[in-house]
């Protein structure tokens, strides 16, 4: 692998780091979003970037809506269009006219046995028990040991300052690689031209 290819690879890697940081920054206000972390590795084919998801819990924000649910120590479940149970850590649910609780993507909240029904005046406690006017009307499906916070949403775990630093550092790395690439290119141009002149 020569210097020019190596530096071009470094520029690609810097661009990939910026892609990850920009996507993280754009999701500062997406509830429950978990940021991705870029990892650069130097291998035989130069620098390559992969990314993984940062699973740290985002801060819980009080919203005051009974059907905004966040979880601590586990997940709750929603049912997607194919009938699969999808684990989610936080969901902002709204009632539909049939009493089902739907999240932003229209997936229904699952109870311990099948879909859950609730009414506008319902409350949900830390164990996931749904009560209406004092009577138990259902129970959320939860992973064992999960506690539910009704009236809270998990915010995005993106830290704006951290991502800004990453953006700047990716930009500088890109510039450095470009400078090095140009320097190598100039040196080669000189070599080639000088050789030609000697022969002429």
């Amino acid at each position: 692998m020569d210097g020019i290819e190596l530096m071009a690879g470094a520029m690609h890697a810097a661009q990939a780091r910026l892609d990850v940081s920009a996507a993280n920054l754009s999701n500062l206000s997406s509830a429950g979003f978990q940021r991705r972390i870029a990892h650069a590795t130097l291998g035989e084919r130069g620098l390559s970037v992969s990314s993984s998801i940062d699973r740290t819990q985002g801060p819980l924000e009080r919203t005051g809506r009974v059907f905004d649910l966040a979880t601590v120590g586990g997940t709750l479940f929603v049912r997607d269009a194919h009938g699969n149970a999808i684990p989610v850590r936080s969901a902002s649910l709204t009632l539909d006219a049939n009493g089902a609780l739907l999240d932003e993507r229209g997936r229904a909240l699952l109870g311990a046995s099948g879909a859950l029904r609730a009414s506008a005046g319902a409350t949900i406690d830390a164990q996931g028990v749904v009560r209406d006017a004092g009577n138990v009307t259902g129970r959320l499906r939860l992973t064992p040991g999960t506690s539910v916070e009704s009236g809270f949403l998990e915010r995005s775990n993106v830290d704006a300052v951290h991502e800004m630093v990453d953006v700047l550092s990716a930009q500088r790395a890109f510039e450095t690689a470009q400078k090095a690439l140009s320097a190598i290119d100039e040196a080669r141009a000189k070599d080639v031209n000088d050789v030609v002149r000697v022969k002429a």
Partner: protein
Amino acid sequence: MNRALYAAATGMAAQQQTLDVVADNLANADVTGFKRATATFASLGGDLGTAPAGVRRLFEQGKLEKSGGPFDVAIEGEGFFSVERDGRRAYTRAGAFARASDGALRDAEGWRLDGVRIPADATALDVGADGRVFVTLANRARQEAGRIRLATFAAPERLRTAGSARFAATNESGRARLVTPGAEHGPKLVFGALERANVSIVESMMAILSAQRAYEANAKGVQAADEMQRIANNLHRG
């Protein structure tokens, strides 16, 4: 393909929408019965950025405030006053009504409250927590002038906004179900009070600041992506 540029641009658009919604909340912070809204967003997955996931109205109770109007009434708990104008029906929590020339109770924009008719010689009015309206006539006699029932919905958050503090039923909200106020666990009426907008000025200001900062951060992302593209384009000149 410059993914970072587009992702950062979706982030700027999201913060712009947040600002629009907060500005609307603030503009209506003094409107009786106004319910604040909030914009929600969800990730597009991968490096693609974010997309709006809808604007949601929050029907949490506003503070009740003593008022001096002749027929001000507020709802404590769920439900809406059912009002009508020109054959159209709407639902509102703004209870600033006054006696119109036809004896009906109407708000400032002419929407008529269902179920109440005030005699011409009435000198005083009052409303019980159970919605029964009493008038005192010129001859000091007291008589019932109707009853206010409240409209409740299976899914109030799916009502359509039809004016700053008025809403209309939709298929998703379900049809209005009328309830009598004053029952245990149910809504109550408070006479001589109005419900303020449920907008907190301080929280709105904080939301503006945080949206502004997030906007700037995304703008930096756009700038960096653009700058890198410029550098890449200049490579050719060596």
